[in-house]
């Protein structure tokens, strides 16, 4: 808890010293961090490998975009509502996807995300089709404040969502519920034979994961002022999975670092080459082969006691 507070304090001080461009990058890193962390709930704790997590992000982004474009609901509430909506929709998705396990589960999540992608292309009224939703505003409020509409205010809102999401996710995985999830991860048949309805647990964790992922997408829409089908595309699903693995699965903090690392490397490499993805691929392979515990695993290697804290 002390580390969490220290990191929060450090991030809260960032706007004082950083130029606008760095603030933009940092805000995006926090949004992606929340997104990657949400996927870690599924991948790291219940071994539910989703190839379609962009669905959560896109759903959140389009929902928030429409709320902000067409209603007066204040920004923070719009973000929360979008997260809840995304989580609710995912209950149906999870109900279907958890019929299968392993690779089949992954394929079903991918299929569902691609289905949403196709729908978004045709449903012009809600998504703007290939033109996307442009000019998504940051509505003022609540209580008349315009703070969250400002660049720095939006950064603090993002930070609050990330830390709120992190505390929620951590409480979840440390609870008895989280213990059952880990049981599913290690040996689902055994957990089932102990009398746990593992499928319900899986559906619940997918819903929690989609809710947080949806919140990340919901933050992205007013951050960029724009949402289009890219946010539902499999490429994003692949990228977020890479962030989770590079950061370190089953740690919650790792994927947040992974997201920041991914964005940073992308930013730096793309200055020198258009084929940055190629080089990132090499980095990714390196992590899988030599540091399967990810960035967090590397950081903890020197401090073995930390692992069992």
């Amino acid at each position, binding site marked *: 808890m002390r580390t969490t507070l220290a990191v929060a304090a450090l991030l809260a001080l960032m706007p004082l010293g950083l130029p606008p*461009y760095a603030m933009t990058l940092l805000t995006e890193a926090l949004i992606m961090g929340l997104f990657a962390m949400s996927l870690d709930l599924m991948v790291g704790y219940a071994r539910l490998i989703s190839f379609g997590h962009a669905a959560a992000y896109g759903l959140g982004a389009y929902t928030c975009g429409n709320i902000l474009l067409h209603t007066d609901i204040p920004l923070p509430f719009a973000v929360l509502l979008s997260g809840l909506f995304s989580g609710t929709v995912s209950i149906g998705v999870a109900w279907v996807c958890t019929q299968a396990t392993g690779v089949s589960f992954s394929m079903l999540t991918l299929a569902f995300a691609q289905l949403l992608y196709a729908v978004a292309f045709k449903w012009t009224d809600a998504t703007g*089709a*290939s*033109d996307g939703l*442009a000019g998504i505003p940051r509505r003022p409020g609540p209580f008349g404040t315009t703070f969250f509409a400002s660049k720095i205010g939006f950064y603090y809102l993002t930070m609050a969502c990330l830390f709120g999401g992190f505390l929620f996710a951590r409480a979840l995985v440390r609870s008895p519920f989280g213990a059952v999830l880990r049981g599913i991860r290690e040996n689902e048949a055994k957990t089932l034979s102990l009398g746990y309805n593992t499928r319900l647990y899986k559906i619940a964790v997918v819903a929690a994961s989609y809710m947080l992922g949806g919140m990340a997408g919901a933050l992205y829409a007013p951050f960029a*002022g724009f949402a*289009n089908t890219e946010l539902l595309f499999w490429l994003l699903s692949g990228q977020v999975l890479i962030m989770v693995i590079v950061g370190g699965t089953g740690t919650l903090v790792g994927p947040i670092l992974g997201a920041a690392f991914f964005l940073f490397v992308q930013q730096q490499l793309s200055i020198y080459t*258009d084929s940055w993805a190629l080089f990132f691929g090499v980095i990714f392979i390196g992590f899988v082969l030599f540091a399967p515990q990810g960035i967090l695993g590397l950081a903890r290697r020197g401090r073995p006691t930390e692992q069992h804290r």
Partner: protein
Amino acid sequence: MPGMHRRALLMSALASPVVLRHARGETPIKIGMPVALTGPAGEIGAQMRRGAEFWAKHTNAKGGLLGRPIELVIQDTGGDPASCVRKAQDVVERDGCRLLFGMTLSSEALAVVPKLAEWNAVFMSSDNGDGRLTGSSLVPNFFRANTSGPMGTRAVSLYLRQAQFKGFYAIGMDYAWGRNSIGVFKDEIQKAGQNFIGDVYSPIGTKDFSTYIAKIRQSGADACFIVMQGDDNAAFLSQAKQYRLPDKVQLLTEIVDLNSIAATGDASIGLIGSSRYSFTFPGAANAEFVEMWKKEYKTVPDTFEGEQWQAGQVLAAGIAAAGSIDAEKLRVALEHVEIDSIKGHVKIRACDHQGEQQGFMVKVVKKEGAAKPTPELIATFPADRVTPGCGKMTYDS
């Protein structure tokens, strides 16, 4: 400089020692240009980039603007609106650009313009077609120096009033510009009491048009209006030729450009359409521009190279009048800019920031002995007939 490999930094002042002396010590005017250099619109973006580089080099050789050299900061968007927003944000926040060019697709421009106020940046469009940019989506810092989609479509429909066709079909790229232009065309055709049979839209990047061509053939239309550009346009025209569509149907298009003609060869002969710019346009200013261009690139300038040049000239006139690149002053100055351009007289309207200019109709012909077909001017319409009412996309008469 870390961005050197990726960003094509244009410091043409370096090429000319005389100018260097004047410009030394002056901070450059940076113009950010997020533009589609890859993807289906890549060829158009490449034209825009060449046009901008040529304009910057020419302007710098004359001492720059306000005595400051122009520096272009070019970024590839791939033609994706989300990426375009990010790249535009990059050039504004990281590179400190307060002026913007580029944004090849209308969908990219529509995504970016709501951000202009926050960035305090002015965007001068050289190719965005969607009428909404100077209509319902107009923002104070957006200006359009080029012929818009509705204006190009209007030229076609004015021309058609003299022609006799039984029925019209329309095909467009499935995004902002395609749908907007066909909407205007349909409105024009129906107002003229003619028969509009139907329309169809192909996703950006479509390679195989056989089903679309079959649809057009079966519709019974004897004229088809095409709203496409770049690779899609070239693919459609050459496949239309393979399926002998031009034998049955007169092809009309909103944009005739040399690139598509070169890509389709003789398949483009007989194509009638509006032209936003062609090296064959009349006038001394254009002749001079074409000569300068030929000297630099050993070929004639294409549609978006000419349009980009014109956009540059409009921006330069605005900056000169404002004496500053500060968005607030520049905006006021640009609202009163009038120049004699390569396309004739251009006047920026204060009410909707659209450049009033003539409309041109061309027909693709192959002159005897010529290696490839060229667009030949067949009709010119005055600015007040092709430019829509302020903030509008449709026409009353």
